[in-house]
């Protein structure tokens, strides 16, 4: 399975119980999906996403701050493809 597909799979598993799935308009997670805006991520969800991705790719301690911070400031949002690119750079 490609890295991008494994990232989407992880996100689908992570969000499977969220209220977002009860909404009439189902969100299909794809490369351009934004975590905060479209999936309703909060900071604690990001923490759990990091754990889930590290488990999926069997690599603990990846420097996710590089993904979530820019010039010492937290970014407003990230897309699925941002995550894929980051994981690719770490494997």
């Amino acid at each position, binding site marked *: 399975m490609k890295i991008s597909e494994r990232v989407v799979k992880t996100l689908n598993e*992570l*969000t*499977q*119980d*969220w209220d977002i799935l009860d909404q009439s308009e189902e969100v299909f997670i794809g490369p351009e999906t934004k975590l905060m805006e479209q999936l309703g991520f*909060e*900071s*604690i*969800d990001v*923490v*759990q996403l990091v*754990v*889930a991705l590290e*488990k999926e790719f*069997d690599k*603990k*301690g990846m*420097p996710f*701050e590089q993904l979530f911070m820019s010039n*010492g*400031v*937290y970014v407003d949002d990230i897309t699925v493809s941002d995550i894929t690119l980051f994981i690719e750079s770490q494997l």
Partner: protein
Amino acid sequence: MNTAKVFLLGIDGATFDLLHPLTENGTMPNLKRIFNGGAWAELNSTPNPLTPPAWISMVTGTWPATHGVYDFMHPKDNDDGSVSLRFTDSRDILSDLIWEIVSRYSYKVNSLNFYSMSPTRKIKGNLISGFLPWRHLRRGTYPSQLFDEIKTLQGVDIKLLGMDMSDEKKTVIGIPKEEEVGWIEQHTKRNSSWTRVLQHLEDKYPSDLSAIVYDGPDKIQHLFWRFMAPKWKDQFCDEHSQCIKAACMKHFAMLDKDIGQLMETMGANANIIVASDHGFGDTTEVVYLNQILNQLGYLKWSSQSQDSRSLGLAPDRLKDHMGMIDWQNTYLYCPTPSSNAIYLTKRGRREYSNSTYALKMTELKETLLTFVDPEGGKPIFSNVDLNASRLDGQDCHETEPDILVRLRDGGFVSVLKSNQVVKQRRYPEGTHRPNGVFACYGPAFKAKGRLESLDITDITPIILRILQIPKGDKIQGNVPDALLNEEWISSKDHPQLSLSITRESSTSEEDNISAAEKEAIMEQLKTLGYME
């Protein structure tokens, strides 16, 4: 099989200072039955009496230097010399959990709401981790399909089982007055939801070791200590205070009802162990540890850092406060308010290399112990502990602090910048104390009445002994002399060793017990007469 049954009843933050009056005045009759019918003692917590190290010490039988957990978050050095904070999860626990150990002996486990059990490890039984938002509870549930079963369970609101982050923020930044009673009632309902889940599990999947943590008391005591503590409660008597007191009393009364229901569920022959991760007491002031390190020349604030304008540390600022430090010019820092710890930065480690480390740390210890509050002129720190292993030049976990401090009022530090190093709180608030609660009740216990204090690491070996499982060399706790009724224990069937239960989340190398460990276990079993 005629085996023993153990019920570990965890109450986060429980203190005899509250529980004794509540059992005596009739609010908690079931707990009174345990105290009066069995034995009780103070339980010494971890050096920093905090949920993560303490609960992990309790369920591993090892101290933080062995299991590696010190705080909710741990610092990680970045390549550029700065520091990031990472949340602690079960992968950071370096010791075996008691659920894993007893599973290896074919005992069945039901474990609910213990800190940092996610990602879950493979056990023989069921587990739902504590301290997880409900949206992530499936990942903290073992086996994961149990989540669907619990979700549809009558009388259980799955959202109540999770840790609500907005709710958690309120414990730090405060609750609007009009929401306070509702907030307490929510925690009362939450306790009952966990009770319902354990009743269901015990009905459907009876266990040999059943364990639950009620975390409502800790949260309520943090915010409303002054309305409950014997020392303060009579000073707060207005109408609103009376409502808060009534809601708090109801919380403890309902908790006792939950305890009574679970005692019934576990059966008359269950061996009950009541334990808290730490005690509770007052905090009346805020000490700005990083500000002190700044004044002493060990820490430099970055240009964008601002003075703390309030006593509280808003969670939104928690993620940002590491940006308040100029890492290139900082040697020592405190990473989180709950840590009460000081760590060396990358630069600090370079400057204070092996030959000067002990000298510098000892110098800083002396400086801190004599550091006085500029207004009162009295020392702020009651204790400053250096890391003995590091002083000896031994390798330590990255998560292990260089220094642990204890404040004169027993509280936790602030990590923010401030124009004063100590500020008085508006009201006395609740904070942790090292002396928690232990009580035991059931046929496996011989001791009665008040006992000498136990260590938090003793809980695991006590449970193992009741279940006739060898303690092994790695466990640091002990079974106190004359606590157990050995005759009753030996009348029970011996456990069967099963080597198939191992960590689900580990790598294949770690996945199986090593040959040496197998041999050691076999050796222990032979010694104890369980194996030929």
